[in-house]
């Protein structure tokens, strides 16, 4: 357990020591989104009856921050370690592939939750956001950040250079997040895009998370939970296989 705990602790320190970039900056970004989108769309969009657009937007932005930062944590840690070569210290150690997986995923969860909480707390200073079920909120935040943390490990292992990681982020993670219903309810979309959204796992994470706040969602939170859990298990299995076989790590 000490080995796992050390790696987990090291990963926490890694982002905490540069918290200005890893925590404050993403909180600020999320608040800018809130400021701009709510200003532009407040009078035009009503996603759920009786819920103002800005209030609707807040959980989406919180979850987006959670997901993006969870992904950023494991992926950037791994690519940095690979490029600078200090990944060797982990690879030389008797840490098992399961311990490595768990440490990176949990550190990602921690970063995601810290940034998400930051965004949430700041918005609470300006808006009143209902909180129907803390349990659903926590459940989706945990599952979503764990899923993205694992995905970040895959991306960090797969990418050999920083630009490859950036491509993964810009061409996969970012479109999936933006098209997941952070900024809108998918019921406002034309039928084709609405049905396409159902193939986006990020949609279920956002929708379920939002349910925890409003008690209203595009689809049942139980269904979303099942989808997100399945995705998490599948991605975790793949990540564990990569770590076990030493794919791109042990040549």
């Amino acid at each position, binding site marked *: *357990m000490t*080995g796992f*705990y*050390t790696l987990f602790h090291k990963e926490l320190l890694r982002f905490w020591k540069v918290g200005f970039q890893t925590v404050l900056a993403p909180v600020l970004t999320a608040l800018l989104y809130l400021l701009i989108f709510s200003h532009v769309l407040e009078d035009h969009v009503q996603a759920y009856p009786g819920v103002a657009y800005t209030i609707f937007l807040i959980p989406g932005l919180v979850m987006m921050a959670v997901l993006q930062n969870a992904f950023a944590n494991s992926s950037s840690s791994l690519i940095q370690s690979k490029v600078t070569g*200090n990944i060797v210290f*982990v690879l*030389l*150690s*008797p840490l098992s592939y399961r311990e490595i997986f768990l440490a990176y995923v949990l550190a990602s969860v921690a970063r995601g939750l810290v940034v998400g909480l930051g965004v949430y707390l700041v918005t609470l200073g300006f808006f009143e956001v209902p909180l129907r079920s803390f349990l659903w909120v926590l459940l989706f935040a945990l599952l979503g950040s764990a899923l993205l943390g694992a995905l970040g490990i895959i991306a960090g292992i797969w990418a050999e250079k920083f630009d490859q990681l950036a491509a993964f982020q810009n061409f996969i993670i970012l479109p999936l997040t933006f098209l997941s219903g952070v900024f809108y309810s998918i019921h406002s979309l034309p039928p084709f895009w609405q049905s396409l959204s159902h193939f986006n796992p990020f949609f279920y994470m956002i929708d379920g998370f939002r349910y925890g706040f409003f008690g209203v969602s595009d689809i049942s939170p139980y269904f979303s939970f099942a989808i997100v859990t399945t995705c998490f298990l599948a991605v975790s299995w793949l990540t564990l296989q990569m770590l076990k076989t030493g794919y791109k790590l042990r040549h």
Partner: protein
Amino acid sequence: MTPAIEVKQMHKRFGTVTALGGVDLEINPGEFFALLGPNGAGKTTLIHILAGLILASSGSARVMGHDVVTSYREARRLLGVVPQELVFDPFFTVRETLAIQSGYYGLKNNDPWIDEIIHHLDLADKANTNMRALSGGMKRRVLVAQALVHKPPVIVLDEPTAGVDVELRQALWRFIKQLNRDGHTIVLTTHYLDEAEALCSRVAMLKQGKIVALDSVRNLINSISGVSLRLRLSPDTLPAALLPLLSSCDEGYYVLAVKDYSQIEGVLTVLRGEQVQVLEMRLLQPDLEEVFVKIMGSTESRELA
């Protein structure tokens, strides 16, 4: 007795390139052992397989009896590796780096030993300095320290003295010799053959992924028969009778190859007879470098033939 390191029929191919072509090697506990060979001979590949950084194409490797693949956790606990490249984690200080490395090996409360390593490697002044701010030599010391945090019985150093100043080199070898006296098995690679000759009891020479020599330093040196005699003469001409012995001639220095010491007497007799005066004379004994050059050269000609 379980060998400290046991490598059997080790093959490693990278695509079409064969890095290791069937290496068999046994290193006993307590040995001070050198892996020698030109760049690209496969030394680092072999070390990386032992460390689990590279997976072998076929063959097996064991550290103190533990297979490096099937019981990798035990094998890695028993092995300390100093990598060749100067790598470091820029987020941490020297002490943090060492505490983290200890933790990876499951060690808690390892501070007394960390303090001892810091002391021996002369890192005390820099213990709380960020890794980024250290000079190359200091980073090298930290790498050595990291390899030792878990007191591994087998220590592998991949070119530990490359680009290191004299002072550190001496301090490092003092410390490593002490560890060897305390019972640690030491395996090193180096391009400085005088270091290997002075420190090691046994060496393996690798060439193009194969072991071309494996013996004690003494036996290898003894395998080169004879000594060389380096002479400066007045007048500056070598008597014709000695020409068959001439192995090289350079800027007024004649190097004669003699089979044994008794032949020296004959050489001097000839010189006296021809009334040639000896201005300078040096006896050149064979060293590991000569053995190395000879072995690397001879396998080359055999391969060409």
